[in-house]
């Protein structure tokens, strides 16, 4: 079981899971990354503040899509958004001490006026590997195999 948490600084439910991410094309380090669980998203995405602060990306690099191995435009309720694609390794720490690794891709949002402060989100590319529980009344957030 992987324990998550609700954002303690807001009064509305925001369920988060802490993942650890390693980007093989960038650096050989595991980075803790809190991800807002979004069951409406097909993919896990990092937004610009986390990209520069946690992943060490430069905003200029994010704007230059020719620097990235892949690139795609995804749709959402706020309209379409552009994402750089890079391979990623995720690690999740179970409460019994096991570490679960998932190799897939990560999408990093190209900065816009509207997405700079958005939380990074955990989508179904990762969620499909787990049973997800979010119980606001009991303040429980968890992923289970």
């Amino acid at each position, binding site marked *: 079981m992987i324990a998550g948490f609700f954002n303690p600084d807001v009064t509305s439910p925001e369920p988060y899971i802490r993942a650890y991410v390693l980007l093989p094309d960038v650096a050989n380090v595991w980075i*803790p990354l809190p991800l807002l669980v979004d069951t409406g998203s097909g993919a896990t995405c990092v937004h610009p503040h986390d990209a520069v602060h946690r992943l060490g990306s430069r*905003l200029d690099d994010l704007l230059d899509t020719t620097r990235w191995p892949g690139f795609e435009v995804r749709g959402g*309720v*706020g309209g379409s958004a552009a994402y750089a694609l890079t391979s990623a390794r995720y*690690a999740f*720490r179970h409460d019994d001490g096991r570490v679960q690794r998932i190799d897939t891709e990560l999408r990093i949002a190209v900065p816009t006026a509207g997405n700079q402060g958005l939380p990074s989100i955990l989508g179904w590319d990762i969620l499909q590997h787990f049973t997800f529980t979010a119980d606001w009344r009991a303040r429980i957030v968890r992923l289970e195999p």
Partner: protein
Amino acid sequence: MRRENELTDPEIEAPSVEELDRVRAEADAEDGYFHEHFDELYRTYPEQFIAVKDGEVLTTDPSLFDFCAQLEARGIRPYDVWTTFLTKRGAKLTL
């Protein structure tokens, strides 16, 4: 966080629990600071990015571009200090 000149080993194993707990402890210290001081910081710098080092506010700005530029002008990389976006607008988000 990324550090300059760190190259990637093509055969990267799953991290150890000890490694994850070490990097998590660093992140928890940062998250704990912003949670503990959220109300006072939000009163002064609502809906802004903020950088803090050793309890001192280094810079704030509502634009991530300007925020990063201000840090860069001081020779500071955004991943070398504690930063967050001070917001209460989560309930208004529809992702």
